[in-house]
């Protein structure tokens, strides 16, 4: 099937305004009759639930944490982009649009990206009005910094906690609506099924994580804003509870999953120390503004203290390979380069999976005091985890899975191929193409939640009658029974291996074979290993406890069961995409000096996969990508 993204036509700078005008509206007095379910209260879901509640819809919102303030958006450090051009340094909506398309390696839809750039400015205004304490200069104006290789300063930030402050802004707006009675909040509720009636999304089933009770909720529309899936790698910078479950339940009901193989590996994370490791901690990209990446030139030096390795025996590999961008090369490039050093057995630290990020030159140049001012909190965090003082000894860093560009397929209205199912934030595939630029995920989450969905959902709701299907419909009972059956099945296996042992095993395969550099043979190996692990999981997992209590083992087992199906579709996508682009690097498709080669002639499309059941080949649907406003170019950072 050829998919239609339903992008409006005409001059790109008018598309969103024209589309907003063309869409139907819901009469104010009717809004209350429509019930909208919002799953997830991160930046995307929190902003959506608050805005829709304020408009007068009857909103129910869900999250798995004990409070809507704790979604993983809270962990974002660096900042949020907007095309304000406050510094007068040449930024514009067009430039932000262009940078995002190019940064995504020409694998995103133009009109969606344009809209993102256009509403980016409203986001900053909105957050300021909420009381978000962005950094300011001495005159009291908003401060900007440059981030992730951009040539303009367009990143707004709140110390090293931008995500936290933006999320608390959305949470405050949401709290106001909860108080006003327009939003009912269900915390510690995990969505474990999507209810589809006659091909239309009409509700969800959740597990109450305290009592274990399964309960269904009906809605005239369902919005998923449930975040990313990189925990499929087991170790990542995501929170422990992040999963593909909500999105995967939709995929099991027929929602297409787009570009799952586009994942971002972040270059500056703290390396793993042992098998006990449960997650990886990211350190802001800004560290590369002053730090120099190097690895020993000689294998024999790897165990030496870094200070004992003389200058001439150090390989400043980024400066060597990318003289013009040096240590500021984009994330995918910097990550792969670090891996190359370690694959060449020149890594440092435990397990030899690490490279140095050295501040000695910077400290000599600007003084320790200035470095402390710039990165003090990061150095402190590093010391807490590693017990090493990075002012005295270079940091050790290693790449880690960080962000998923892929996600459920949506059209320009953020609606999936299942009518009534909308997908927002990191959970959809829409704007980042094959690679996401720094500080643009926060922007996307808030754009979707505050400024896109309030309009596009009306366009859908205006075409349906509210409350026609409620939880009286037999599909809801069936959904609960089906989930209960799967739960019972998991609890009755009573095997020998724990859930985390299986998750680790899956993660190892995904990281080694479907990670930073993928080849036909590694992918085929993964295609064989994943079903083996899945089969063993269903025969030999040990899930303790019962279904009618707080049961974290059961929660984890359910999430892993979904990862085990999803991983195969992910790998199939990586195997089919015979090119290298953005976060997807196929070793067969590179130039002589190791740069990615894209194949626009054959692969300039969105790959949207239809799940056909575990172990069956998924079906590929394509949405061709057209570029009318930018010229396809080779992404070069030499």
């Amino acid at each position, binding site marked *: 099937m050829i998919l239609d993204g339903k992008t409006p036509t005409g001059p790109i700078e008018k598309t969103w305004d024209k589309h907003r005008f063309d869409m139907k509206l819901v009469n104010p007095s009717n809004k209350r009759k429509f019930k909208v379910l919002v799953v997830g209260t991160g930046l995307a879901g929190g902003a959506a639930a*608050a805005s829709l509640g*304020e408009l007068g819809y009857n909103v129910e919102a869900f999250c798995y*944490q*004990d*409070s*809507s*303030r*704790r979604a*993983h958006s*809270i*962990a974002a450090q660096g900042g949020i982009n907007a095309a304000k051009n406050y510094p007068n340094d040449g930024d514009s909506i067009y430039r932000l649009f262009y940078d995002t398309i190019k940064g995504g390696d020409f694998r995103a839809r133009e009109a969606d990206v344009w809209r993102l750039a256009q509403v980016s400015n409203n986001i*900053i*205004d*909105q*957050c*300021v*009005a*909420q*009381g978000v*304490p*962005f*950094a*300011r*200069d*001495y*005159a*009291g104006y*908003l401060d900007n910094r440059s981030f992730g290789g951009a040539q303009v300063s367009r990143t707004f930030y*709140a110390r090293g*906690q931008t995500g936290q*402050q933006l999320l*608390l802004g959305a949470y*405050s*707006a949401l*709290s*106001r609506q*909860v108080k006003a009675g327009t939003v009912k*909040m269900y*915390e510690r509720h995990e969505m474990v099924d999507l209810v589809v009636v006659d091909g239309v999304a009409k509700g969800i089933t959740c597990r109450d994580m*305290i009592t274990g009770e399964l309960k269904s909720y009906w809605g005239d529309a369902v919005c998923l804003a449930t975040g990313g899936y990189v925990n499929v790698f087991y170790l990542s910078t995501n*929170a*422990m509870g992040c999963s593909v479950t909500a999105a995967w339940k939709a995929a099991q009901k027929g929602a297409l999953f787009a570009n799952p193989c586009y994942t971002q590996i972040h270059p500056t994370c703290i390396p793993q*120390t*042992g098998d*006990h490791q*449960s*997650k990886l*901690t990211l350190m802001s990209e800004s560290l590369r503004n002053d730090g120099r990446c190097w690895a020993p030139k000689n294998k024999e030096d790897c165990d030496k203290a870094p200070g004992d390795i003389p200058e001439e025996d150090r390989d400043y590999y980024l400066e060597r390979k990318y003289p013009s961008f040096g240590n500021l090369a984009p994330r995918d490039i910097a990550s792969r380069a670090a891996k190359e050093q370690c694959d060449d057995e020149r890594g440092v630290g435990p397990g030899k999976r690490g490279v140095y990020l050295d501040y000695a030159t910077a400290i000599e140049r600007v003084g320790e005091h200035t470095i402390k001012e710039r990165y003090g909190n990061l150095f402190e*965090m590093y010391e807490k*985890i590693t*017990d090493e003082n990075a002012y005295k000894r270079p940091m050790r860093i290693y790449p880690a899975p960080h962000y998923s560009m892929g996600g459920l397929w949506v059209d320009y209205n953020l609606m999936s191929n299942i009518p009534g199912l909308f997908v927002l934030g990191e959970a959809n595939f829409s704007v980042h193409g094959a690679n996401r630029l720094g500080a643009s995920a926060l922007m996307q989450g808030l754009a979707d939640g*505050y400024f896109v969905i309030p309009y596009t959902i009306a366009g859908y709701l205006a075409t349906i009658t509210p409350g026609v299907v409620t939880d009286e419909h037999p599909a809801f009972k069936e959904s609960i029974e089906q989930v209960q059956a799967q739960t019972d099945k998991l609890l009755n296996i009573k095997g020998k291996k*724990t859930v985390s*042992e299986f998750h680790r095993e899956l993660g190892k395969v995904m990281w080694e074979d479907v990670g930073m550099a993928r080849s036909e043979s590694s992918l085929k190996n993964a295609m064989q290993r994943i079903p083996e692990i899945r089969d063993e999981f269903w025969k030999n997992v*040990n899930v*303790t*406890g019962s279904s009618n*209590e*707080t049961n974290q*083992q059961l929660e984890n087992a359910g999430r892993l069961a979904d990862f085990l199906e999803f991983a195969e579709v992910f790998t199939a996508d990586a195997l089919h995409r015979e090119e290298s682009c953005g976060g997807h690097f196929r070793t067969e498709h590179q130039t002589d000096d190791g740069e990615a080669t894209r194949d626009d002639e054959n692969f300039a499309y969105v790959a949207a996969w239809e799940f056909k059941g575990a172990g069956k080949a998924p079906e590929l649907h394509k949405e061709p990508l057209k570029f009318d406003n930018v010229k396809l170019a080779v992404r070069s950072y030499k």
Partner: protein
Amino acid sequence: MDLTLHVWRQSGPKDKGKLETYPAKGISPDMSFLEMLDEVNEELIKTGKSPIVFDHDCREGICGMCSQTINGKAHGGQDRTTVCQLHMRSFKDGDEIFIEPWRARAFPVIKDLIVDRTALDTIMQAGGYTSCHTGGVPDGNAHPIGKPVADYAMDAAECIGCGACVAGCPNSSAMLFTSAKVAQLAVLPQGKHEAMARVMNMTDTMQAAGFGNCTNHLECEASCPKGVSVKFIAKLNREYMKALVS
């Protein structure tokens, strides 16, 4: 290293609960405290016992989900550190470690180390916001905010809503938590207009939710993993007085 844990086990809100003792063997100093508990849980599962349940999510000190009292101290008592950031190198071979949930009337235990903190959300719903609409707000630079004011607001906004201040306070007061939001919004031009109603509504709700009064023990500040200062409580009190007399 080898340790002995005494962990609070409570099957549900109605159960009385008690401390159980478990060995934690072969613990690496590089592990985080929660990774140590993961290991202990793997052992418990393998020996047919029920694993210890505890709240956690980001494991990097920002989401505010983790909540354990370790040897009588909220978050273990290390300066500016949440439980998830605590590392085993701060313990010694042979140590006995007592692990309990937050204790406060307003935070009933759900199971083992998990407590119900929805009362903190209720306080926020009473006024922890500016009543702006989505859209229709002025340009972000329309109201310059001097750097000292912006920094003050950011210091207050560091709160992660973990509830350690409540657990650490002999009166189980939520003053530090409440004051941080009151102070942040009271100093900003966007939040000033509603300052009086906000401080009244938030403190009333705090009391109704079963939190105690503040009698200046300052244990809250000592327990806070984000260094939120008691100066915000003084600010709350000033805001409260202003609201009372007007």
